């Protein structure tokens, strides 16, 4: 569904993406992981056409993405930080998106809208919403048009545990519908039950793209955090980051 060939992007001196090659197909849930600034968001934004690559190609449904923007009607995107027009009311935002995409009412997926109880805040302007509520709005918008590809950038960051569970459940549901889902997250335990593949990025380079079974077999670990830690330990620089993750996780679990 998405094919990436020799993708390169440089921001001034920083090599944000360094020769990325990958193929994602439907039914997969890809976890994009890596330290901050490793190029995860840049990769996502390049797929969406918001960032223009220096060289290399991205194909969505075997069509190159530059040119016709209609491929984006098949993608639901939940940004890391959802930024919306301040004065726009929540209800107005949804009706506007509906109007722009011109889709029949029956094909809309209002599941999250209902479960997050967003209808009750339809007359509130976006600027009055808290960070978490904004995240809910972003999530509901991403799933709203029932797209075949979902791109979720840090979906659970800032959500309360209950909403986070609702969202995870929704992702699982969509996974069963044979959709392609791309997720970036630093909360590896959240990804454990969702993911089928792991793509590890560091300093713009793709270190590996493996399915979770292979990963588990190779490392002999059942948990994603430990499996990745096992692989990363072999490399000193990488091990540093993964040890930090483990340390934080340990303090969280046994306060």
């Amino acid at each position, binding site marked *: 569904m998405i094919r990436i060939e020799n993708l390169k992007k440089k*921001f001034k001196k920083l090599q944000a993406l360094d020769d990325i090659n990958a193929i994602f197909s439907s039914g997969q849930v890809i976890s994009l992981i890596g330290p901050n600034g490793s190029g995860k968001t840049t990769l996502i*934004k390049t797929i*969406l*056409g*918001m*960032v*223009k690559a220096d060289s290399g190609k991205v194909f969505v449904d075997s069509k190159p993405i530059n040119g016709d*923007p*209609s*491929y*984006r*009607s098949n*993608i639901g*995107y939940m*940004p890391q930080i959802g*930024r*919306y*027009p*301040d*004065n*726009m009311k929540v209800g107005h935002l949804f009706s*506007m*998106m509906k*109007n*722009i*995409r011109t889709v029949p009412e029956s094909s809309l997926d209002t599941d999250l809208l209902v479960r997050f109880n967003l209808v009750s805040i339809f007359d509130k302007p976006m600027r009055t919403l808290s960070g978490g509520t904004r995240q809910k709005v972003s999530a509901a918008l991403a799933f709203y048009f029932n797209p075949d590809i979902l791109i979720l950038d840090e979906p659970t960051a800032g959500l309360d545990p209950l909403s986070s569970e609702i969202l995870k459940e929704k992702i699982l549901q969509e996974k069963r519908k044979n959709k392609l889902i791309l997720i970036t997250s630093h909360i590896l335990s959240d990804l454990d039950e969702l993911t089928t593949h792991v793509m590890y990025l560091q300093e713009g380079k793709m270190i590996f793209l493996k399915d979770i079974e292979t990963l588990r077999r190779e490392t002999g670990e059942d948990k994603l955090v430990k499996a990745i830690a096992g692989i990363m330990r072999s490399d000193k620089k990488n091990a540093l980051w993964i040890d930090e993750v483990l340390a934080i996780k340990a303090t969280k679990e046994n306060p």
Partner: protein
Amino acid sequence: MLKLTRYVLYDIIRSRVVLAYAVFLLLVSFSLFQLEENHSKAILSLLNIVLIVVPLISMIFTTIHYYNSYEFIELMLSQPLSRTRILLSEYAGVAISMIAAFLLGVGVPVLVYSPDPTGITLIFTGAGLTLVFTSIAFLASVKARDKARGIGSVLLLWFYFSLIYDGLVMLILFAFSDYPMEKFTLLLAALNPVDLGRISIMLKLDVSALMGYTGALYKDFFGSNTGVLFTSAMMLVWTAIPLWTALVIFQKKDM
């Protein structure tokens, strides 16, 4: 395209700045026509205000609007819409509202008090200048990364077109006063939309008799149908080129 423009217009109208601009122009126009017995004199005073205020307000408003709707633009970029369409919708929204405010603030009083060719020329010149400077401001804001730089460059451009350019022209004319410069000044006038507007209105008024040989040459050229066509075409070029450049830059921009 119109769909998006509608949302841009809705956003602009709600901010009420455009309304204030229209009321300001309306007050100035009416008071000038009330103060001056001779409507031709009132038109001349109005011309000077239009030539200063219209470019300044058009540029400042456009720049602030662009940066304020950055979130909206970002949101639209993740939708199946082309970048050209997004920026053109923004331009159309801003240009339509600014021209509407100008027509209400200056057009209506002029048509009430002095509905002659001079008045009509003033209205067309003002509307043309609005289009031109909105387009230039779009170029400046697309090119500048942050708001401060955008507004700064727009102010500089306004200084250039309203003050510095005339100074430069004077300097050139003085330096080469031994040579026949009449044809050359025609070219110089075309390179500044403000001067172009000023000349085309001045020639409709009696004061052009005071401008000597150059005035006669101008009257010969700008007074004719070819001159009107030339002025309109130059205004169009001044609108199209900055807007087109802005589109090209916007196409390649990383959001």
